[in-house]
């Protein structure tokens, strides 16, 4: 979004302001959610350019954009006036109430002073109080959102400090009878309403609002309203009802109206404004709109002068304990007592390691002295900053979470051994946090510096983030509301913004474009992208000749229609605008006074939760203390895992007491056997692990931080990897430092900047910054649009380096380049240590309790980098000693969730899609009660589940054990087979269930017939399900398969020269031309890669990393983004440290599959892609016909690979065509990871 503070246009605007004849007192921003298309910053900037002295933001029942406007308006020489347009409930009239609530009319409220702000917050809170009405059966269910509105009486009760304008032209509270009429004044009812407003607000604070939206009856209405104002003895004021800051956004406003009303542009004419006069105009232009009402124009200036409330001033917010005079003493007592427990004689070692050895007892005396000195230093800083109450509040929150954890876990659970939550972020560096339980990492042993978190020059409040398992967090948040009072605690809001895919879908729909084409386009778009959408739409419209048109070919020939062009334009414009109000993942505000005096509080989607209308930035600007109570999926997973270990093995694992120098664990990390573990499982991390080869916890702490935009852009990764390699080869290798002053602060990262706090440490050690200045530098680097600020920092840094460290200009500039390069996101070391510990713990569980860990991951989805199907595949592909058997769905063996069974993992029935959890629970309960089901008829009769559930069970293969091809009963077989015998009875089972299952449920909630356990007749001669069809059935019903991989089925039909498997690639020499086929399981196109896309292919043997250069990506972008089964041609890139191992030719490589035992240095293998194609085009019998046609014409060799299961179709088995392979996989493809989007942790 544009922002050009200090531009010449803005200066001209400020000069104009002195003579501007008009102030805009009625503006909507995008925070009116689908009734406004400009951000506050855009409105402020444009207002400055046009010469406005002030503007008022009056979003619908919301002040979500107010703080943002208050902050940015000053930068543009504009004064922010605050207010809101409120929906007031009225009698519905003959047409009845509107959707989601009573009929409403509008009034505009403007804030005159602090009292007015409090009253506005209370009115808005009341307006939203009923919007999540109704109780839900489950507290975790989302409550549907209704429309906000408030009774007039409530407004009148809160009139003090507010100015009331009588409302917009279309829906004014006092203008109802004027709508659609050519003349006449307000009716008796409206006049009575106006007089009630007058009584409450008084003549000095009530204005009749005149607007000129260029609708047909404007003049008549304004004349009538002016007459009413005369009768009431109040003034008129002109307003513009601005909804866009520039004419270029006017069309988007129309489209938003259609989205808001769930209709199309073609059908929404009566709902739209009819023209684009709602765009911000110059003050003189606005004045000229009201030639008959010059006084109303002048009144805008007089009124604006009175509205002097400044939102950036103190709102009176205080957090509990902020003014507690005993807080410092109490905090010091608590910490000193805990210090003796943690560092005194007999203290147990804390989690974490240094140099591969357990820490906590370093040298007891020295550690104690160091900790004591550090504690006193921290307490001094905390006391000076007046933050003791802040720490005690967090401690109180943690104690509350302990109570909740006990309730959730149960007193006897093995999980009870674990802390209720963990710290993350820079606060982990604080000894006070460690001693008060807010951190689990010993900052003394881990050598964590405090400066990033706390220093004497700190302005504002530091951040303490706490991670909790999901189930504990879910209970904790409502408990916080109870503890601090429902009126004094609320979540922080968040504003999901339009991103490419959502914008394409919503805007394409209102433009009336074909649903299929919209969806295709949306799926092909960068998930979080926005720029460059025009070309995407061109492609969809068949405009641009593309080299590879994708499996479908071009959408349409010829030029794109107007609608497609508008989709491109509107999508660009909508990108980044807030779509609706949502809640922050865990940020909470608590206060000593009712929060509704500071900011409106509205109900959240989940029962028992409420949130303020401000996001974290606005809360920060308001000085609110935000406590982050975050849910961390991996914490939940490891807790599940220790529970499962206790169930299966009877062992009680305390993860804080496991050995932290376990060599099996580090061996797995060095071999990148890390699928599923925390933080170090991604494609990039795994490749990095093979090069950095971590050997202890300190290495792991660095590893967690290394694949981040900061170190990547700062150019730290390659030097760090290279220096580690040199050190491994030659321990005497001397690390090169740009300057000796850098050695103390960059020693652990071998002269590179990897941690965020190192930026500050470099600034202090090299350029002589104070801690406060260094923190300022860090903040300047992390802020957007701070070029000028960063330039000032640069000058200060270089000058400081020359003076403080005696560096020459060249050295100072080179070090600045390192610092500046880090401007992207990076982890502080404390955060890396916290996450590194969980990475280690999860790897330890994976290594020593593989089935239990896999089971926990599958039960805690969605989380992590890999979809369940990929987790299952990887477990099955491990080396024989680590391989985990994964057993399929079975009505006679599966529980609701996945379970460990005979050393393997049984998939739970909860994985079946479109099935009610209650049904699955009932089925399992009945099996436990009455024994295994012996037939389909018995299953239908005893389980009592719905027909749809039974059908899904049958189609998923869960009934295979009680079904045969002929439909006869097999008893209680539970083991899933593989190959052609698996699932051949699914069609027969479905046929039989048609006889056995109850009829559909009637509207009265009863089945039309009971299911009876009679013996079912055999099914007719149905053709057995083919291998491919079984795979698709698995994916479509459960999102995963424990059977054959797609490539295992397809490979025999692939006729591609130089085709290599994932198992063969590591054995081939670098530079080799290869073709690889695979199922895409991850896509990544990070901003740091300059247009390169990274794909992760999976075949039947493992995974393959593909690097798709920008030029290739541009040529094949639709395939790269959306096609699940691909064939890539390119050049092999192989890197291996030390002995190169056996690098074979292709013919030799064919015989090698699987991984050798024991630790060895695995090579890093990538395929640099030259060409991508849909795999289906290369299948014999596929869309391209038999070998010899089209792309396979040059097929010189057909590789019959060992172990590729070249199975001929069984008699009667259907051989699917290539086109069906592609379309069926596209329809049923399992969830895929996108790095950009990131599946939630």
């Amino acid at each position, binding site marked *: 979004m544009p922002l050009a503070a200090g531009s010449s246009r803005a200066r001209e605007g400020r000069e104009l302001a002195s003579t501007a004849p008009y102030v805009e007192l009625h503006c909507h921003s995008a925070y009116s959610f689908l009734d406004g298309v400009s951000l506050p910053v855009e409105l402020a900037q444009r207002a400055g350019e046009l010469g406005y002295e002030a503007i008022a933001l009056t979003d619908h029942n919301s002040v979500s954009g107010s703080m943002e406007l208050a902050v940015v308006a000053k930068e543009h020489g504009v004064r922010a006036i605050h207010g809101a347009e409120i929906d007031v409930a009225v009698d519905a009239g003959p047409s009845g109430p509107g959707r989601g609530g009573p009929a409403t009319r509008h009034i505009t409220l403007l804030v005159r002073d602090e009292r007015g702000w409090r009253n506005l917050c209370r009115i808005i809170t009341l307006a939203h109080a009923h919007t999540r009405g109704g109780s839900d059966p489950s507290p975790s269910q989302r409550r549907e959102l209704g429309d906000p509105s408030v009774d007039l009486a409530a407004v009148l009760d809160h009139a003090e400090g507010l100015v009331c304008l009588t409302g917009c032209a279309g829906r004014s509270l006092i203008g109802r009878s004027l709508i659609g009429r050519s003349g006449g004044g307000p009716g008796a009812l409206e006049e009575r309403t106006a007089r009630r407003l007058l009584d409450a607000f008084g003549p000095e604070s009530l204005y009749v609002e005149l607007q000129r939206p260029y609708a047909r009856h404007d003049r008549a209405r304004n004349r009538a309203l002016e007459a009413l104002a005369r009768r009431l003895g109040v003034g008129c004021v002109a307003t513009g009802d601005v909804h866009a800051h520039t004419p270029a956004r006017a069309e988007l406003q129309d489209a938003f109206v259609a989205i808001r009303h769930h209709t199309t542009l073609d059908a929404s004419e009566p709902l739209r404004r009819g023209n684009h006069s709602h765009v911000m105009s110059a003050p003189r232009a606005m004045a000229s709109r009201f030639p008959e009402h010059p006084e109303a124009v002048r009144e805008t200036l007089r009124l604006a002068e009175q509205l002097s409330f400044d939102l950036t001033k103190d709102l009176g917010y205080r957090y509990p304990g902020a003014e507690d005079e005993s807080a410092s003493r109490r905090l010091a007592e608590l910490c000193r007592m805990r210090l003796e427990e943690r560092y005194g004689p007999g203290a147990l070692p804390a989690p974490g390691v240094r140099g591969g050895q357990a820490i906590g007892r370093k040298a007891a005396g020295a550690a104690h002295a160091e900790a004591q000195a550090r504690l006193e230093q921290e307490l001094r800083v905390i006391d000076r900053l007046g933050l003791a109450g802040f720490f005690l509040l967090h401690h109180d929150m943690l104690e509350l979470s302990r109570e909740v954890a006990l309730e959730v876990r149960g007193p006897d659970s093995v999980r009870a051994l674990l802390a209720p939550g963990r710290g993350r972020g820079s606060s982990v560096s604080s000894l006070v946090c460690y001693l008060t339980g807010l951190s689990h990492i010993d900052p003394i042993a881990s050598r964590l510096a405090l400066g990033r978190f706390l220093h004497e020059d700190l302005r504002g409040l530091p951040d303490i983030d706490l991670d909790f398992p999901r189930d504990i967090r879910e209970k904790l948040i409502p408990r916080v509301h109870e503890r601090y009072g429902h009126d004094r605690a609320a979540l922080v809001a968040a504003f999901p913004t339009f991103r490419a895919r959502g914008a394409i879908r919503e805007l394409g729909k209102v433009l009336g474009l074909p649903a299929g084409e919209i969806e295709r386009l949306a799926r092909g778009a960068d998930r979080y992208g926005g720029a460059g959408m025009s070309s995407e739409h061109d492609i969809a419209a068949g405009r641009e000749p593309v080299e590879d048109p994708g499996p479908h070919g071009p959408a349409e020939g010829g030029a794109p229609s*107007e*609608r497609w062009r508008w989709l491109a334009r509107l999508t660009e414009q909508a990108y980044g605008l807030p779509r609706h109000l949502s809640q922050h993942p865990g940020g909470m505000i608590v206060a000593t006074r009712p929060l509704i005096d500071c900011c409106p509080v509205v109900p959240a989607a989940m029962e028992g939760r409420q949130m303020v209308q401000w996001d974290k930035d606005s809360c920060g600007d308001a000085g609110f203390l935000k406590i982050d109570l975050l849910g961390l999926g991996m914490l939940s997973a490891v807790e599940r895992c220790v529970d499962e270990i206790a169930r299966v093995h009877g062992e009680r694992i305390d993860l804080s007491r496991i050995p932290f120098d376990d060599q099996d664990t580090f061996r797995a990390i060095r071999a990148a056997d890390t699928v599923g573990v925390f933080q170090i499982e991604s494609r990039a991390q795994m490749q990095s692990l093979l090069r950095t080869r971590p050997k202890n916890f300190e290495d792991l702490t660095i590893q967690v931080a290394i694949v981040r935009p900061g170190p990547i852009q700062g150019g730290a990764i390659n030097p760090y990897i290279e220096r580690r390699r040199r050190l491994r080869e030659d321990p005497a290798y001397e690390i090169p430092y740009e300057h000796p002053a850098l050695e103390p602060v960059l020693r652990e990262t071998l002269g590179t900047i990897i941690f965020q706090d190192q930026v500050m440490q470099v600034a202090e050690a090299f350029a002589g910054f104070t801690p406060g200045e260094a923190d300022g530098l860090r903040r300047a680097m992390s802020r957007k649009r701070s070029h000028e600020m960063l330039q000032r920092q640069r000058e200060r840094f270089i000058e400081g380096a020359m003076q403080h460290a005696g560096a020459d200009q060249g050295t100072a500039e080179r070090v600045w380049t390192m610092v500046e390069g880090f401007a992207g996101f990076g982890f502080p070391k404390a955060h890396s240590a916290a996450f590194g510990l969980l990475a280690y713990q999860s790897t330890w569980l994976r290594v020593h309790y593989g089935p239990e860990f896999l089971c926990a991951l599958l039960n805690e989805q969605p989380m992590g980098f890999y979809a369940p199907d990929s987790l299952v595949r990887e477990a099955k592909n491990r080396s024989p000693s680590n391989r985990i058997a994964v057993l399929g769905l079975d009505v006679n063996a599966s529980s609701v969730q996945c379970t460990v069974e005979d050393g393997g993992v049984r998939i739970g029935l909860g994985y079946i899609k479109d099935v009610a959890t209650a049904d699955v629970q009932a089925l399992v309960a009945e099996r436990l009660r009455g024994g295994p089901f012996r037939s389909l008829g018995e299953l239908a009769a005893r389980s009592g589940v719905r027909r749809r559930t039974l059908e899904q069970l049958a189609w998923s293969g869960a009934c295979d054990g009680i079904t045969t091809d002929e439909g006869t009963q097999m008893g209680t077989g539970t083991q899933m087979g593989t190959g052609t015998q698996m699932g051949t009875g699914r069609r027969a089972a479905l046929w039989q269930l048609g006889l056995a299952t109850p009829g559909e449920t009637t509207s009265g909630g009863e089945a039309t017939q009971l299911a009876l356990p009679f013996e079912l007749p055999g099914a007719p001669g149905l053709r057995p399900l083919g291998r491919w069809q079984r795979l698709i059935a698995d994916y479509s019903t459960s999102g995963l398969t424990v059977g054959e991989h797609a490539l295992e089925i397809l490979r025999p039909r692939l006729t591609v020269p130089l085709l290599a498997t994932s198992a063969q690639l590591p054995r081939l020499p670098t530079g080799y031309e290869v073709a690889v086929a695979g199922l895409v399981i991850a896509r990544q196109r990070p901003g740091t890669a300059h247009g390169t896309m990274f794909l992760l292919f999976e075949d039947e043997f493992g995974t393959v990393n593909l690097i798709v250069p920008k030029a290739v990506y541009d040529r094949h972008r639709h395939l790269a983004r959306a096609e699940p089964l691909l064939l890539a041609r390119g050049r092999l890139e192989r890197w291996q440290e030390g002995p190169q191992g056996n690098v074979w030719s292709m013919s030799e490589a064919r015989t090698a599959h699987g991984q050798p035992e024991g630790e060895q240095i695995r090579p890093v293998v990538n395929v640099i892609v030259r060409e991508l194609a849909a795999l289906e085009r290369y299948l014999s019998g596929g869309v391209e016909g038999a070998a010899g046609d089209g792309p396979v014409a040059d097929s010189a060799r057909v590789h019959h690979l060992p172990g590729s299961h070249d199975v001929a179709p069984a008699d009667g088995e259907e051989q699917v065509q290539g086109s069906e392979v592609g379309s069926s996989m596209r329809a049923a493809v399992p969830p895929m990871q996108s790095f950009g989007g990131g599946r939630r942790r």
Partner: protein
Amino acid sequence: MAARALNHPRPARVRRSAGHPVEVNGEAVESLRESWLVEDRWWTAAPLRRRYWELVGERGRNLVVFHDLTGGGDAPGGWFVQSP
């Protein structure tokens, strides 16, 4: 039987002064009652952009005329009259 649109705009001869119509099809404009703007169908190949005036002619009739601002359509930039 052929269908005929009701109140279909008919081309008009309009003389303007200071941006306002002062004569419509030879009839002088006595007074200006309303003026409004219609901008619609911008997403189609036939966008609509019209400035309307509701007038009282010298013969006491209400007149509604509009100026087509799209620069396209049947009569680019033309003036039309519709029944009020």
